[in-house]
């Protein structure tokens, strides 16, 4: 009891055991360069997949596969049932009112494009204002730039301070001189981890009768998101960041809005009646799902949601908060290292962007890779934010349910090595 006091007085145990979670992820067991466990710190780009999800894909193709919705035989019925069960899983995850409000897309990007085209291009006009933030991922920026350019509406930005924290002090001015129609904001920044204060922004938007779209790519996989409680109108997320397969994601939208919006893509599934000259469209949600959907991938996204819920989304969040704090503290001890984004102690997602004086993020990430520590380097699809912060690129570490303290220790050890190689230590 005397020899290892810090071990004995263990920190309040996470309710989640990341080692046990990791056992579900085959890819983490052996890194490609060292044979050691893969210290995968790039979940913000895409999450790894548990066997439960990989097995779901196999199960679909091996025992319940057919095209969905129209087939009368057993496999078609089973495939349809599993596919629609995933819709219910999304509904449940987001606490949506009805599965009709859940539209499957390839991911966040397609979901936002759907709204920017179907709602944006039919509703926006000159004199209208769309507001977003300076934090946005290109996927929630460029669709609105284009919708505004096409309709004459104006795109305005909620600014961030030098810590990348949203500054809501000037909100009222943003709605002046035009009609505020849409507020499209990220929930948690993928570059900085900034948590956007929806509790301030949503009431402000609603006081102007504007709609609110939330880019939930970095929130839905990591914390409990209740679309009714948030009082928002649209939410987009990607299955692949939620431990689901690539190729599947969803748009949630309020039924009254979706019902009035015209379809965007046209083809099979989304029609009710087609003549050579004209067509009438199907009910929600199928109106927005043209063509054969990502059947197995959507089904497996359902499995990923169940997996996440079995871990407990609050437990996952709590674990990430701890890992992020631990990583943040340790990073701050690395000489010459600067962490961007909110200061230690401020609420943030599990994303830490950093720079080391005298090295380039690409070199950091490349060197870390040789130790099987995976971080991302670049602009993280947020070029304007990078420019706003006066940097070209950052190195970024991000955590998830399977992240261990040891992963972070290896990051820190790797960074010491980076400094040595570059003659900084």
């Amino acid at each position, binding site marked *: 009891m005397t020899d290892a006091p810090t071990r004995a007085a263990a920190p309040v145990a996470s309710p989640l055991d990341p080692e046990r979670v990791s056992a579900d992820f085959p890819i983490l067991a052996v890194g490609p360069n060292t044979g050691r466990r893969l210290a995968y710190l790039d979940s913000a780009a895409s999450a790894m997949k548990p066997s439960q999800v990989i097995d779901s894909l196999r199960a679909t193709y091996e025992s319940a596969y057919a095209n969905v*919705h*129209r087939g*009368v035989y057993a496999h078609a*019925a089973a495939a*349809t049932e599993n596919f629609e069960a995933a819709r219910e899983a999304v509904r449940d995850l987001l606490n949506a009112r009805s599965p009709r409000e859940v539209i499957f897309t390839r991911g966040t990007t397609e979901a936002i494009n759907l709204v920017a085209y179907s709602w944006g291009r039919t509703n926006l006009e000159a004199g209208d204002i769309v507001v977003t933030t300076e934090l946005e991922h290109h996927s929630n920026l460029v669709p609105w730039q284009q919708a505004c350019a096409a309709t004459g509406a104006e795109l305005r930005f909620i600014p961030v301070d030098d810590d990348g924290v949203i500054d809501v002090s000037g909100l009222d001015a943003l709605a002046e001189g035009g009609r505020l129609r849409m507020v499209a904001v990220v929930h948690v920044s993928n570059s900085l981890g900034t948590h956007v204060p929806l509790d301030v922004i949503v009431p402000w938007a609603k006081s102007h009768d504007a709609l609110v779209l939330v880019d939930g790519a970095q929130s839905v996989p990591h914390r409990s998101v209740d679309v009714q409680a948030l009082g928002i109108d649209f939410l987009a997320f990607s299955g692949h960041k939620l431990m689901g397969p690539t190729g599947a994601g969803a748009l949630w939208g309020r039924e009254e809005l979706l019902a009035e919006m015209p379809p965007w893509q046209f083809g099979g599934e989304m029609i009710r009646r087609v003549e050579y000259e004209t067509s009438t469209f199907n*009910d929600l949600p*199928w109106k927005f799902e043209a063509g054969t959907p990502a059947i197995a991938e959507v089904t497996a996204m359902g499995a990923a949601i169940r997996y996440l819920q079995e871990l407990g989304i609050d437990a996952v969040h709590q674990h990430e908060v701890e890992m992020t704090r631990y990583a943040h503290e340790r990073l701050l001890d690395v000489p010459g290292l600067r962490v961007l984004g909110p200061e230690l102690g401020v609420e943030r997602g599990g994303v830490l962007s950093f720079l080391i004086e005298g090295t380039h993020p690409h070199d950091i990430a490349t060197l870390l890779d040789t130790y099987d520590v995976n971080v991302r380097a670049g602009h993280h699809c947020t070029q304007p934010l990078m420019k706003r912060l006066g940097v070209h690129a950052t190195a970024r570490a991000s955590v998830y349910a399977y992240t261990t303290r040891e992963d972070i220790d290896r990051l820190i050890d790797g960074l010491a090595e980076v400094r040595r190689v570059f003659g900084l230590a």
Partner: protein
Amino acid sequence: MDDLYREFILEHYRNPQNYGTLEHPTFEAEGQNPLCGDELHVQVEVDDAKVITAVRFTGQGCAISQAAMSILSDEIIGKSLEDVAKLSREDIVELLGIELTPVRLKCALLGLVVVKMGMHDHAGTAAPAGWEGVDEISWART
């Protein structure tokens, strides 16, 4: 194997009950399932006490849709509109006495959707939640 096509169903399909038209229906409506082309045109006669006194239908389509309508027509004659309003999907499945996959359930429900929509349209009441445009079935006043 042919659970779905028990003699009872096939009998209704071959010799539908209440097939034909009424001279003075209280209300009528028609519906289609564009998926397979099932069609039904249903007429209903109601007395002053809002009790159904006669039903007639015409249509074409699969055995399930046509037999289900035939069975439904027998069931609702003599029932009050209020009782008909309470009929659920499950009631139809029970009346047919067979297990249905989702796609075939649409066939079985066509008749009930048409009756419900016609009834509410006639009464000027809103279509009951979950039944308007249910299961891709479309309907129209006639």
